């Protein structure tokens, strides 16, 4: 079984290389389609690497296989169906929906690890603290990504309008209140690893809603790109939680690239990120004209 770890290592390196080439290629029209396929292949390789390594070292029980296959089939089929069915005009909404689900996935992983800790204390005090902290980050960012993306999708679909209170100063107090609650929960959780779990999840979900709801439809693509960057951060945090270097690289890469893309999109619309996030839907025109 000694030869499996090097193979896994090689697969991981190859996957990271392909993912980086994929992101790079996606920013040029000529190579974009191949780059997208390349990234898809990299994802399959990475999943294969994890399965191979676990099968070789600790073994995967029949129970685990059943649940893996269930999750794969249901998620994959729904994803494929949604991707095939959705009209081309609804693309930003669907990207928001997918993105929210990615955030939800990171959140659930962190929730699972926090509810059923399996650590044997071999990491020491500092290691334990880092692990708890990454659980907090994963929960916080994952919840914001999920609720924010769903709100963004609902607004683009026209299911949600912009309530008037979100255009007043009240929303800043609401958001700060949620952020403080989440912070308190985070501090509790990073100290003892149990308390404050659901406080973080609820407070950061509300924060995601409170931040996204006031933003007008024209600015939504920028917000979705920002949320996409967040889901990369959530993935990197989940990488810390389960101890996977590959996950950390990929998450960090998407997080940083998403941030740059957000900036590029803002520049393309001649707006600053600050005015998109805090300007609001109704006051935004004056901010934009004042800035431009």
């Amino acid at each position: 079984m000694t030869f499996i770890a090097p193979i896994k290592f090689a697969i991981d390196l190859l996957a990271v290389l392909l993912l980086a080439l994929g992101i790079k290629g996606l920013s040029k029209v000529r190579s974009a389609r191949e780059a997208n396929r390349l990234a898809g292949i990299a994802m399959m390789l990475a999943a294969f690497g994890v399965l191979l390594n676990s099968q070789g070292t600790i073994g995967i029980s029949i129970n685990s296989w059943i649940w893996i296959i269930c999750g794969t089939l249901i998620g994959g089929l729904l994803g494929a169906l949604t991707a095939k069915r959705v009209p081309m005009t609804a693309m930003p909404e669907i990207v928001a929906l997918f993105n929210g689900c990615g955030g939800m996935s990171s959140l659930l992983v962190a929730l699972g690890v926090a509810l059923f800790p399996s650590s044997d204390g071999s990491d020491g005090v500092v290691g334990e603290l880092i692990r708890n902290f990454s659980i907090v980050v994963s929960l916080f960012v994952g919840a914001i990504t999920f609720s924010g993306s769903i709100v963004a999708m609902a607004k683009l679909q026209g299911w949600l309008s912009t309530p008037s209170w979100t255009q007043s100063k009240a929303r800043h107090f609401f958001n700060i209140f949620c952020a403080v609650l989440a912070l308190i929960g985070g501090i509790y959780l990073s100290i003892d690893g149990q308390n404050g779990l659901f406080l973080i999840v609820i407070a950061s979900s509300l924060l995601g809603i409170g931040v996204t709801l006031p933003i007008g439809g024209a600015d939504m693509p920028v917000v979705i790109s920002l949320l996409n960057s967040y889901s990369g951060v959530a993935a990197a945090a989940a990488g810390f939680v389960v101890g996977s270097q590959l996950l950390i690289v990929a998450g960090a890469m998407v997080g940083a690239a998403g941030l740059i893309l957000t900036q590029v999109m803002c520049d393309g619309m001649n707006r600053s990120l600050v005015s998109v996030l805090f300007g609001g839907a109704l006051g935004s025109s004056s901010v934009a004209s004042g800035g431009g």
Partner: protein
Amino acid sequence: MSFFSEALWVLLLGSLLGLELIGKVPPTLHTPLMSGANAISGITMLAALTLIIKSGDNLPLLIIGSISLGFALFNVIGGFLVTDRMLAMFSRKKTRK
């Protein structure tokens, strides 16, 4: 502790790589690039897989892991297919319907 110190290096270098990967993006590619990057961020499916494999016979944990895997795969497969559909509109070889 060794894992975490290595992991922090990996985090730092990965972030720097991500910052440099995208330079100039033509505006037509903003949405496909966003969608493609989004599909890649579904890589949390590896975390979900690891969670399921390590959970043994703990049923609640298996269920949480399975739901998480489902969400992640929804993101990954849907994301790549949607990006491919968007990019198919750019190809010059095929005639548009």
